[in-house]
């Protein structure tokens, strides 16, 4: 194996599991944020679904977060449906926030206000680490 190829593999390994219609590098996966809020709108849309989540900030003011999710086809496979979330629902979400800052992030986990998971987690390939 050439030296050039060895050098090349390093960045590849970091990026290995990421793929959708755009790159996930816009999100900071190393600094997840947990938000408790109220759903204003659930967008069941392509190429991504979104939760418009109203969250109280540190000053007690309402802020709206743009929470990006997978496309409906992937969510459907995980048990989500268009009516899974409705306006006014209270939820707790964990997101990978936007690297550039602002009230946006990528959904990593969602539960109801009393902690029940929403949807299921995907099955794991034999030999893979979840």
């Amino acid at each position, binding site marked *: 194996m*050439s030296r*050039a*190829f060895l050098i*090349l593999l390093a*960045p*590849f390994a970091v*990026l*290995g*599991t990421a*793929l*959708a*219609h*755009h*790159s*996930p*590098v*816009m999100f900071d996966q190393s600094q997840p944020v947990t938000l408790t809020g109220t759903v204003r*709108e*659930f*967008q*069941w*849309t*392509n*190429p*991504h679904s*979104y939760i*418009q989540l109203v969250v109280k900030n540190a000053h007690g003011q309402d802020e709206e977060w*743009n929470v*990006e*999710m*997978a*496309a*409906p*086809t*992937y*969510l*459907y*496979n*995980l048990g*989500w449906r*268009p*009516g899974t979330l409705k306006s006014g629902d209270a939820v707790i979400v964990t997101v*990978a926030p*936007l*690297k*550039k800052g*602002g009230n*946006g992030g990528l*959904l*990593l*986990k969602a539960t109801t206000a009393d902690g029940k998971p929403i*949807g299921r*987690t*995907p*099955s*794991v*390939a*034999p030999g893979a*680490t*979840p």
Partner: protein
Amino acid sequence: MMRGAVFSAALVSCACTQQAPPGNSRVDNPRVEQFARLPNWSGIWLAEGLEPGVDGFSMSRPPAFLVQAPGIPWNESTVARLQAELATNPELQVKPAAGWGYPLMMDGAPPLQFVITPEETLIFNTYRDLRHIYTDGRAHPPEGDLWATTWGDSVGHWDGDTLVIDTVAVREPNKYFGVSAWLSDQAHYTERLRMVAPDRIEGEMTVVDPATLSRDWVVKLNYKRADGFDRLIHDAYDNDRTGFDGDFYTIKPPSAEPAAAP
């Protein structure tokens, strides 16, 4: 009344005397026999290990045909080109794509469906990446009639219950979806796919592309029957809120109009 009775009698007469066209009964119809000889791969299939999480990105393993996937035997010139790209675009941010393209669709997150007929097998996914695998004995079009496309030109045949596919004229995959392998238009792809159990299809793809690879590249393809889907759902890209601020992709705020139900 009398006219109605005559008309009814005529209908009964037609029904009694009408013969099925030759070859249309299940017993002697050669087309029924052709279908009966083919495997049944109906249902919806997921590439093993590539079932994404709620984020749409996380999977158990990288898709094999991702440019940054480990183990691709790139030749030295391709390595040099990739290094140059990484020097200016270290996180390999790419433009959005409306689908996955070939060969990425064969080892990707979107669920697949196989529709098998005597003349061709259709392989498609939820993003309408569509392949026609002609199994009627035809060859690829002559060179002058062939041009590279995102999904290429495929012909195939059945080797017992194994579908053997030969694909050429695939436009450089990364030109459609920038994270795809940097293969050339001259790449030659051979696939062998077989249902090994009611809920499992296995096979492999061999990619020959001296322009970008140092040797033949063999990729295992494993599919499991999807248990979370009862249909393949297609939808338009009508709410792309991905923005770009010059440095990073961002999320644009929602439009004033509701994006969709609910």
